[in-house]
């Protein structure tokens, strides 16, 4: 088979395995230099750079792990291919369809799914809903990692990523994309500062660091600005969450009237608030399972209640706008766009509203979690894909479906986000201690 003979395949495998190995070894080396070797492996029979061999509970788990690592290696390899042979070599993108899965899913959906950071921060620090305070750190971490992934996806998708700083210098106040760029850059910085105290507290636990560096005073100093940072987070998020919708206002002749509206920015913002709440429910439920923590059910159920209110406003606004634009007849046609519209509105908005509003259902963790997942997958990710993909197909013709390599790269980036979240949750004080809840 030519594929096996291809040096590209072996390059992919080598890099896919090699890069994680170097990273793990490097992190361990740094940790030992900073903190000294743990006593358990201080005996000379252990090499400090020896790789950790994970112990698997079952062979099934080991196989699953191997497949996952293999997929991630492949994803990294494809990213390398993209920089060697061009975007066209790994994607199905074309001049007729220049934005695909990496923009529609990784960037547009990624930014929306990271909205939990500003929503929870605003609730706790600006609206005085203090009981949600235990949720702020995981929400900020999710948002911070989400934005880092968005930037990573941009670096892969941009043709000339080394020019990514240009918008910061060449101000273009008529360009929506310029404003998105400025806000994403600024807000990622804000999220970094918001998360810095957690990282500093984590560093404080390492005695060698705590002895040498004044980490806690710095953390305390940053915390003084929490309210200012929360205001900044809300303002910057309002701007770019909505502007991701404004991007499509520029193409009135291309986007189906089911989605095209001058109020796209408003819809993108409202749905971002809803999915911020839903993502917090999803992320808290998943991490409570993964880390065997208790579930803050009463808090999460309340988030579901608020999400229902936001979704009702969103639903009414969407339909009022559709009717006012005279696009009503499109709602009853038999075509792909109408089907995807109802899939988005029905499963992603109407069903979650019902599940969130009925109190006994809301307090069942499985129902609460499913409703939140529906909002995430159908209400927002499908909405962003409808706007950036399905809704454009009547104009462009059926010219685009993501290649397996695009899908694998997206999967790889999301996986790295999940791994980073797991590592951060394990080594940093992200979740409040059991006693304090």
């Amino acid at each position, binding site marked *: 088979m030519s594929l096996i003979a291809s040096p590209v395949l072996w390059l992919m495998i080598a890099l896919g395995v090699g890069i994680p190995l170097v990273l793990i070894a490097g992190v361990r080396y740094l940790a030992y230099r900073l903190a000294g070797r743990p006593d358990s492996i201080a005996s000379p029979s252990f090499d400090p750079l020896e790789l950790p061999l994970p112990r698997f509970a079952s062979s099934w788990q080991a196989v699953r792990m191997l497949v996952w690592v293999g997929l991630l290696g492949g994803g990294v390899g494809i990213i390398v291919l993209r920089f060697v042979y061009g975007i066209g070599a790994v994607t199905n993108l074309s001049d007729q369809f220049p934005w695909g899965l990496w923009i529609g899913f990784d960037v547009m959906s990624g930014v929306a799914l990271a909205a939990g950071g500003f929503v929870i921060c605003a609730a706790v620090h600006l609206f005085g809903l203090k009981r949600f305070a235990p949720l702020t750190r995981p929400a900020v971490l999710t948002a911070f990692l989400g934005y880092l992934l968005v930037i990573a996806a941009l670096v892969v998708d941009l043709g000339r990523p080394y020019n990514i700083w240009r918008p910061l210098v060449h101000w273009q106040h008529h360009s929506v994309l310029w404003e998105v760029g400025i806000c994403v850059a600024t807000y990622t910085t804000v999220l970094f500062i918001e998360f810095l105290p957690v990282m500093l507290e984590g560093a404080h636990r390492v005695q060698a660091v705590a002895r040498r560096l004044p980490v806690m005073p710095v953390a305390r100093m940053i915390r003084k600005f929490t309210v200012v940072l929360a205001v900044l987070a809300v303002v910057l998020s309002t*701007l770019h969450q909505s502007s991701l919708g404004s991007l499509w206002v520029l193409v009135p002749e291309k986007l189906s009237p089911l989605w095209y509206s001058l109020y796209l920015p408003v819809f993108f913002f409202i749905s971002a608030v809803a999915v911020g709440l839903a993502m917090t429910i999803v992320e808290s439920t998943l991490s409570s399972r993964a880390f065997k923590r208790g579930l803050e059910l009463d808090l999460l159920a309340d988030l579901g209640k608020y999400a229902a209110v936001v979704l009702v406003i969103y639903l009414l606004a969407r339909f009022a706008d559709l009717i006012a634009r005279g696009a009503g007849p499109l709602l009853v046609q038999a075509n792909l766009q109408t089907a995807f519209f109802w899939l988005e509105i029905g499963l992603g908005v109407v069903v979650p509203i019902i599940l969130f509003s009925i109190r006994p259902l809301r307090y069942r963790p499985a129902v609460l979690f499913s409703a939140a997942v529906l909002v995430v997958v159908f209400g927002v990710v499908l909405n962003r894909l409808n706007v950036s993909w399905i809704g454009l197909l009547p104009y462009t013709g059926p010219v685009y479906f993501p290649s397996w390599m695009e899908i694998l790269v997206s999967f790889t980036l999301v996986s790295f986000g999940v791994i980073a979240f797991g590592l951060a949750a394990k080594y940093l004080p992200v979740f409040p201690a059991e006693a304090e809840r």
Partner: protein
Amino acid sequence: MSRTDIPVSRREFLKRMGTGAVGLVALQWVSMAQPALAADDPPPEEAWGILIDLTRCVGCNSCALACKASNGLPAPDVAPSALSADVYTFVEAHTVTTADGTAGTRYVKRQCMHCVNASCVSACPAAAMYKSPQGPVVYRPERCLGCRYCEVACPFGVPRFEWDNGLTPTINKCWMCFDRLQQGEQPACVSACPTGAMRFGKRSELLAQAHAQIASNPHRYVDHVFGEHEVGGTSVLYLSDVPFEELGFPTGLPETAPPEETEKIMNQLPTVIGGMTALMTGAAIFTHRKSNRSLEPIQAEKEE
């Protein structure tokens, strides 16, 4: 290509940014909000344009070959059949029913329309796409991020990206031979046309000529100059004797330039910034007063 054509207004804007106050930034933004054409540019009617009379085109491809030669594009003796990263213009053949009921062939030269208020220019986050005061929409690769929003935005599907270039892909499209214009010459395609189907001149004059031509030959021409009003006007204009929709021209284009809508939204941003800042600060002050605390942050956890 001239690199000194940054609008003065923005330079001043950046200079005043130095004073730093957030409110001042917002105020400046309001006063700076303007269409993609900078204030010191001449009005669009003074800019150059090209009038293409489709009734005179015989499909000889001289223009497309001259374009390749003038821009140093590969395969200069092969007549192209579609726009690509190596083809800025080509001639498209359409079989149509003419006014007298017989079947005939019409040739349509395609290239960048050089919109007066261009979507690609409005879209570009780094001013790599630039509407020159002289009329051409030119591309400056050294600023380009390769985001391809210009391709998404273009109502005519013109820009072409180098999909097989890993590290230095560029956007490629007709630039109305901006280099030749600056030396006082006409675009290569116009100079090469043997039948006089293309005319180069000030856009306003070309429009007047086009309407005069329609008025003196009402039976020959469709009473429509394509590009006069489409997407707010284009610098390339077409005259035809068969309806434009039969020649593959896009229909249903808005008469207002799409950037006008996004610029309206962008002009709301200072209000959004100010309103949200006031609302959120107000909420913070209110809730902290209610809970009888100073503006110190509510903490998730006690410090160690």
